[in-house]
């Protein structure tokens, strides 16, 4: 095995980890605050990818503007998912909540198939490939990584420096107490879902410059995202980043040493074992 290939895969792993961390944080936020796992979360990313794709190819929008539109659009979708599907079943058993978002997953996948067929669509950007110490790194990935880091910093500042951000963190710590303190949990849930959606929209914009989009895009990334989200530990932003890097390294480096499928198998097994040993997440604190 050529060491330069392994190094290249390792760097690519870090770059992919940035985008995965973005997704894990968005999902983590919703899971932590509303206490529901959106099984359809990566399907929202897929919609964001399509949004950018169509805005750029069919309407000729410049890429950055299309990316912003995707963030706004999926943020609205996130809020709508909460209003239309989650809010009516907030007090239902967890299995029903899980299944409602599962139904949404089927719905979004099939509806995307209906609208846009199963073609793989790519922006075909002519972004440069950089040669760093003999490793070939794609500029698109570096860009996606940098934007992810900025977005994470933005989320951190939002959650710590603003009033609603503080309220969101407070609700994730104790739902009942916050309601008793007179906090409007409905508004907090709605804002959280909107932010979760915005993260998905941004991730979509960052993924469409690297991958082609198709209705079943979520099938590969979805389970991975839940895994990273839980592995990092609830409400633990640093944990989410560490978990994304760990998993994306396993996938990226493992992928070139064995096969893509085996690398995923290893990643899932790491997740399962980690859940046995540290159910509160790799960097979590015990309750």
């Amino acid at each position, binding site marked *: 095995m050529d060491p330069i290939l392994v190094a290249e895969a390792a760097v690519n792993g870090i770059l992919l980890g940035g985008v995965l961390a973005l997704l894990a944080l968005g999902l983590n936020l919703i899971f932590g605050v509303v206490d529901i796992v959106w099984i359809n979360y990566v399907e929202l990313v897929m919609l964001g990818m399509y949004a950018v794709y169509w805005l750029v190819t069919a309407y000729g929008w410049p890429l950055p503007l299309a990316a912003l539109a995707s963030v706004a659009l999926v943020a609205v979708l996130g809020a709508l998912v909460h209003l239309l599907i989650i809010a009516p079943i907030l007090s239902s058993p*967890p299995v029903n909540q899980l299944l409602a978002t599962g139904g949404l997953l089927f719905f979004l996948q099939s509806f995307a198939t*209906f609208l846009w067929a199963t073609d793989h669509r790519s922006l075909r950007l002519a972004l440069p490939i950089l040669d760093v110490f003999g490793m070939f790194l794609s500029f698109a990935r570096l860009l996606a990584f940098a934007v992810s880091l900025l977005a994470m910093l933005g989320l951190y500042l939002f959650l710590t420096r603003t009033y609603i951000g503080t309220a969101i963190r407070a609700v994730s710590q104790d739902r009942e107490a916050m309601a008793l303190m007179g906090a409007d949990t409905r508004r907090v849930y709605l804002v959280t879902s909107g932010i979760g959606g915005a993260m998905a929209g941004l991730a979509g914009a960052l993924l469409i410059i690297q991958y082609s989009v198709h209705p079943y895009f979520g099938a590969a990334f979805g389970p991975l995202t839940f895994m990273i989200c839980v592995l990092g530990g609830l409400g633990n932003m640093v944990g989410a980043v560490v978990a994304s890097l760990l998993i994306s390294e396993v996938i990226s480096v493992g992928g070139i040493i064995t096969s893509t499928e085996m690398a995923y*198998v290893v990643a899932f097994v790491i997740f399962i074992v980690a*859940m046995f040993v540290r*159910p509160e997440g790799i960097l979590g604190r015990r309750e």
Partner: protein
Amino acid sequence: MTRLAALLGLALLGLFPWLPLGPARLYILHVAVLILIWGFVGTAWALMGRFGLVSLGHGAFLGLGAYTTTLLWNFWGLSPWIGTPVAVAGAVLLALVFGYPCFRFRVVGHYFALVTLALGEVIRLLIIAERDWTGGSLGLTLKDAGTFNLAAIQFADKRIFYFVALAVWLVGLAVWWRVDRSMTRSALEAIGEDETAAASVGIPVTRFKLRITVVSAALTAVGGVLYAQYMTYLNQGTLAGIGVSLQIVFAVVLGGMYTLLGPTVGTAITIALAEYLRVVFGVKLLGMADTIYGLALILIIIFLPAGLYGGLAALAQRRPRPARALAG
């Protein structure tokens, strides 16, 4: 009264293949076989699900069962009569290896659902990775053994499969019934309510959870074998992983998991709905059938949280029944 209804129902099911079903007779029979197989799998899932052990990875056991017997038959010519016990043993082993640490370390609720989901994906990905044996994502065809071969459990006549599926389904119901009437049920209900409290009164939590998981996994593997023998074509997408696991749970929750026939009724509804939409839309408007299907599932879960059959059964029980009201 209930006994009479049950006997009548059984007689109807027994005579079903000879009923005048019109020109689409074979198709209707095919759908009936599918409903029985998946109803059986749903019943096996509900054994765990009703106690709060929501598994999103039953596809793992399904796929393990189906692929084990088929691979043994295709490569070594081992009859499914031998393959099935091997497959069941494999599923039991997997359930033990996976379940013991799961329950020992108290992985519960959402976390249990996500860990089982990962298990389902592991099996699906392994099937794809071992493509030399399993055909990977292209799937695997069961080696043909003629139109009537008892040793290979292959029959061209759908009526035979109908009765095989009916028998297996009845066994599933019997297992459900026994669990429902046993101490295991009380123990597991106590565990589902409050695990710490259950442990403090001396209920061996891990052992009870493990026992029901093993039974559920074993039955699910049998379901997988049956599906493989009937369809004679296996695909990792339809037999393992998140998609099929979710479909099983959907059907069960739709029918209601706390009643004997709930899982089967839910399965019948989802399969009938999916088949109906498929017939209506055919190959035109690709994706439309599943779009409506997904939408229907969301609406049902929002508006009928107790499931269709479960909701109706609860309504029926609310009627005044003096003798029962006293008993509680």
